[in-house]
């Protein structure tokens, strides 16, 4: 077990089930991912479909180990809410970054890379690269 602090990953989806399942899948597919702090922030506080600023801020605080936090989102209000929170300045831990990546593929790449001890730039680059893996 390394002493190194790992980058945290926050997964923001309109659905609590989607966020939690993608977190479980990404951790399941990445070897040695148990140590990576992955926090889902899905749906509204009432359990409906939507985005909750409170749940995002709580997830980011949970995932923060001092090495930065990479936030991946699905679409629409999830993207806009994270951007608005980042613009606020004091709502999310220092060194929190919205990563432009496909939600599922990016999450897997981010968790694998974070598990290997990469820094926030490395995690971001890996998640972004997921856009380049064409399927046909």
């Amino acid at each position: 077990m390394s002493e190194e602090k790992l980058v945290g990953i926050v997964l923001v989806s309109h659905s609590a089930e989607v966020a939690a399942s993608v977190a479980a899948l990404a951790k399941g597919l990445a070897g040695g991912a148990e140590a990576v702090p992955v926090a889902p922030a899905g749906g509204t506080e009432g359990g409906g479909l939507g985005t909750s600023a409170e749940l995002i801020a709580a997830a980011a605080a949970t995932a923060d180990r001092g090495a930065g936090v990479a936030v991946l989102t699905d679409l629409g209000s999830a993207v806009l809410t994270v951007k608005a929170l980042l613009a606020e300045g004091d709502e999310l831990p220092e060194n929190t970054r919205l990563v432009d990546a496909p939600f599922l593929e990016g999450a897997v790449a981010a968790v694998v890379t974070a598990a290997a001890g990469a820094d926030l730039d490395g995690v971001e680059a890996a998640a972004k690269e997921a856009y380049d893996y064409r399927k046909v």
Partner: protein
Amino acid sequence: MLDADFFRRWMTATAASVDREADRLTALDSAIGDADHGSNMQRGFAAVRTTLADEAPDTPGAVLMLSGRQLISTVGGASGPLYGTLLRRTGKALGEAAEVGEEQLAEALRAGVQGVMKLGGAALGDKTMVDALLPAVEALGSGFGAAREAAEKGAKDTVPLLARKGRASYLGERSIGHQDPGATSSALLIAALAETAEG
């Protein structure tokens, strides 16, 4: 000059207007969106009304900053961060003055609308709230009534437009022929401003 009480009354008038028009906003949103704009805006502005009563911020800038923060927390849809950013950027631009002039408000609102455009990446004509807000800000120099008319016209003029941002953009050509819900609620916000100014 416009003081904190004026801005509180503007926010309260917006809350009342959103309450009255919630069904219409949701009906517009069910045509080209996910049918939650009315209830989202109602929940957000109800929270704004409560927090302004509880915390009684004492400058125009503080009223708008607090209101915007509340919208980001409570709306749960894209209109939360968008309206939240509009009010917070506007509030920030007003600074800490106890009273502001109409010209200062017009300038601050312009900064707010620019914040919305940057956040959502929308330009004029994309069938979004920008189509009501930008003309309103341009017209504000000629008075609050002119701003209201410009916002209402801007909202109506979204009917023939093709949506290029937000959920409605997935509909492509099928978004044509419907008035944009966000532009409609933006016109309510500006109408509430004019109503507050007219007393």
